[in-house]
């Protein structure tokens, strides 16, 4: 009898061994809390959050994230920093950040600050509380400069998207094509007087000076601006052939787009103008969006690319879940990717210890929707213009009419993603 009991116990033990060795499904395990402190009531924040929730749902459907030998589900908590709304003081946004970190105790933060000024101010806060932070909206290159001052202190901060210089480089190279293929060389810049847009416009200006463009004007507007007639008049009077525009607040960009159309400014629009790059632009702004060129950073934010099937897969899933495509032509795919990057880092770290997660994040090598995700020594995602299998990539598209007369966004740069050539509007032909 004793022997039978011992044999049965051994059978149970060995039968159950694989079960104990495998990570346990996360139904009963404590969730891993991911914080999303961002400007929730802006298109970038709200669609970013939707992308995060989509990724979390996918991961949880597969049992969650393995922490050691326990599979734990992800749980998203949010805080509205309101920093995407004009007039919100940086201090208010920081308070929302700190409240979330101290009360909800997230294991990591994704998306993060909307406004670059808030991101820079939040860096010390994140360092103080040691929370791995995967930012996907704020675009200022000041982040790297600040990081370099004290890498040990700021090691918890990563950027899983482009910065303004990457976006501007794509536009600068598109301008090279515009100059070479269309023969245009007079430009006026309009930009929003914020950190990231200044950096974007500054790089465009520097590049154009070096490549022989004639500058008609360099106009900064406050981000609450609602009348662009002075700059548009200047563009008309100065016979600017191209307007290089950088703006992220939908309201101002929308006013600009409609005013540009209304004032019949005979200049080609190139830059980052969300309402003109959004999938619903022809409906909201009008058919006059035709010929406008926008950089989408990174790929997969709103546009499915024939040469990068992952972009289409992500957007199909997004549309299936939410019934619509994301609106802003930026950073939605970054928000989605950031959750997988974090989940992978936690699994490799085998722990929720922030230092171990940070070490694992530094070794990230993840094939995301936005291209290959790797970080450089400044914790910035590496971007290039050659291959999505080596780096993250962006795309520049132009609104063009197809054979049936429907407006479509045609990728024109970089070459390996291009599905068409830049078209010159008939009203600009000599």
């Amino acid at each position, binding site marked *: 009898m004793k022997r039978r009991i011992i044999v049965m116990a051994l059978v149970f033990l060995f039968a159950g061994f694989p079960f104990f060795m495998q990570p346990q499904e996360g139904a009963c395990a404590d969730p891993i809390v991911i914080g999303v402190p961002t400007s929730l009531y802006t*298109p970038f924040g709200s669609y970013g959050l939707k992308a995060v929730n989509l990724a979390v749902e996918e991961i949880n459907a597969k049992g969650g994230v393995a922490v050691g030998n326990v599979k734990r589900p992800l749980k998203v908590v949010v805080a509205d920093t309101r920093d995407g709304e004009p007039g919100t003081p940086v201090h208010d946004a920081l308070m929302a950040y700190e409240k979330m970190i101290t009360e909800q105790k997230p294991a990591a933060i994704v998306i993060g600050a909307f406004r670059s000024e808030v991101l820079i101010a939040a860096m010390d806060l994140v360092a103080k509380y040691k929370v791995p932070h995967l930012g996907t909206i704020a675009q200022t290159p000041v982040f790297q400069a600040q990081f370099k001052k004290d890498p040990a202190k700021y090691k918890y901060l990563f950027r899983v998207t482009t910065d303004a210089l990457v976006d501007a480089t794509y536009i600068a190279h598109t301008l090279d094509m515009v100059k070479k293929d269309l023969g245009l060389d007079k430009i006026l810049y309009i930009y929003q007087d914020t950190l990231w847009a200044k950096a974007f416009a500054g790089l465009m200006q520097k590049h154009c000076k070096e490549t022989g463009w004639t500058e008609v004007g360099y106009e900064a507007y406050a981000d609450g601006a609602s009348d662009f007639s002075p700059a548009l008049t200047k563009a008309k009077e100065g016979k600017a052939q191209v307007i290089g525009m950088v703006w992220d607040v939908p309201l101002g960009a929308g006013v600009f787009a409609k005013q540009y159309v209304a004032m019949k400014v005979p200049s080609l629009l190139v830059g980052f103008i969300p309402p003109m790059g959004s999938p619903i632009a022809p409906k909201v702004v009008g058919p006059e969006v035709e010929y406008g060129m926008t950089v989408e950073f990174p790929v997969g934010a709103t546009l499915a690319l024939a040469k990068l099937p992952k972009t289409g897969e992500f957007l199909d899933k997004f549309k299936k879940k939410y019934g619509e495509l994301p609106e802003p032509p930026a950073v939605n795919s970054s928000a989605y990717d950031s959750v997988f990057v974090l989940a992978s880092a936690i699994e490799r770290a085998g722990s929720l210890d922030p230092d171990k997660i940070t070490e694992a994040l530094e070794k990230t090598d993840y094939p995301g929707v936005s291209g290959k995700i790797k970080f450089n020594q400044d914790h910035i995602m590496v971007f290039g213009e050659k291959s999505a299998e080596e780096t993250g990539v962006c795309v520049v598209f132009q609104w063009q009419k197809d054979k049936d007369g429907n407006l479509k966004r045609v990728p024109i740069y970089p070459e390996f993603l291009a599905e068409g050539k830049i078209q010159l509007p008939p009203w600009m032909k000599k």
Partner: protein
Amino acid sequence: MSLLIYGLINSVILALYTAGFSLCYGISGIANFSHGALYILSGFTAWNFLNAAGLPFYLAAVLSVIITAILGFLFYWVLLLRVRGTPLAELIVTFAAGMGMLELLTWKGFYGMRYSLPLSMKGGIEIGPVAIDFQRLFVVGTGVALVFLLWFFVHHTRLGLAFRAMAQNERTALSVGIESDWVGSLSMALGAALAAIAAMVILPLGMMESSIGLEVLIYALAVAIVGGLESTLGMIVGSFIIGFGQIAAARYIGAKWMIIVPLAAIVLVLVIKPSGIFGKFKELEERV
């Protein structure tokens, strides 16, 4: 030339922002700080009639103006009646109601790139080298027509005369049978309707977002303070000072300074002549 034309357009837009606020204050002494919220609320109401109910724009606009006017009227009876006569309390109540409306709109998802009203008319004309679209001309036309209609209303209609009586001396008006609360509530309704009319012609120029409510309130306050809170002439002059000031600042100093102009104007006027250029309410205090 463009400075003149776009200065004029900008001035008329500011006058339209301010008309309802100034009129309401001039008649009943109520500084309606929910003015901007009513403005943008009317825009979203029209958008809903247009897109959810499928109504034509003109019908959606008329319904939106009527609904906003009713809301202004109800504000008086529901929110203001108990604090009537205490200016600070009136200001706080209307401001809180306005902020509540704006937050509600944001919370309900009225932000982003999809909210836009259609142009009443497409196309435009060129005056010399300056192109102007018909919608902006429509804005100017509406502004001129409204000023004329308001003048006619307050000088040649019974209700308008009652408004003027109340504005000049509330006690005397009461003694001849003009009911103060009715005039107060009607002035709120009229102010709200004017805000909605302004919204119907100005909002098609751009996109809609709840934050516009605060912007409109700030501009209305700036114009009213510069011109004189209760003065219609002051409102027009204030609009022109700030409107042309903004376009000139953009042209000669830099576009980013446009937003400073109304704030600088407020500070300057409060330092030099706190009652505003054509204001009467505090003039005597200033003399003393």
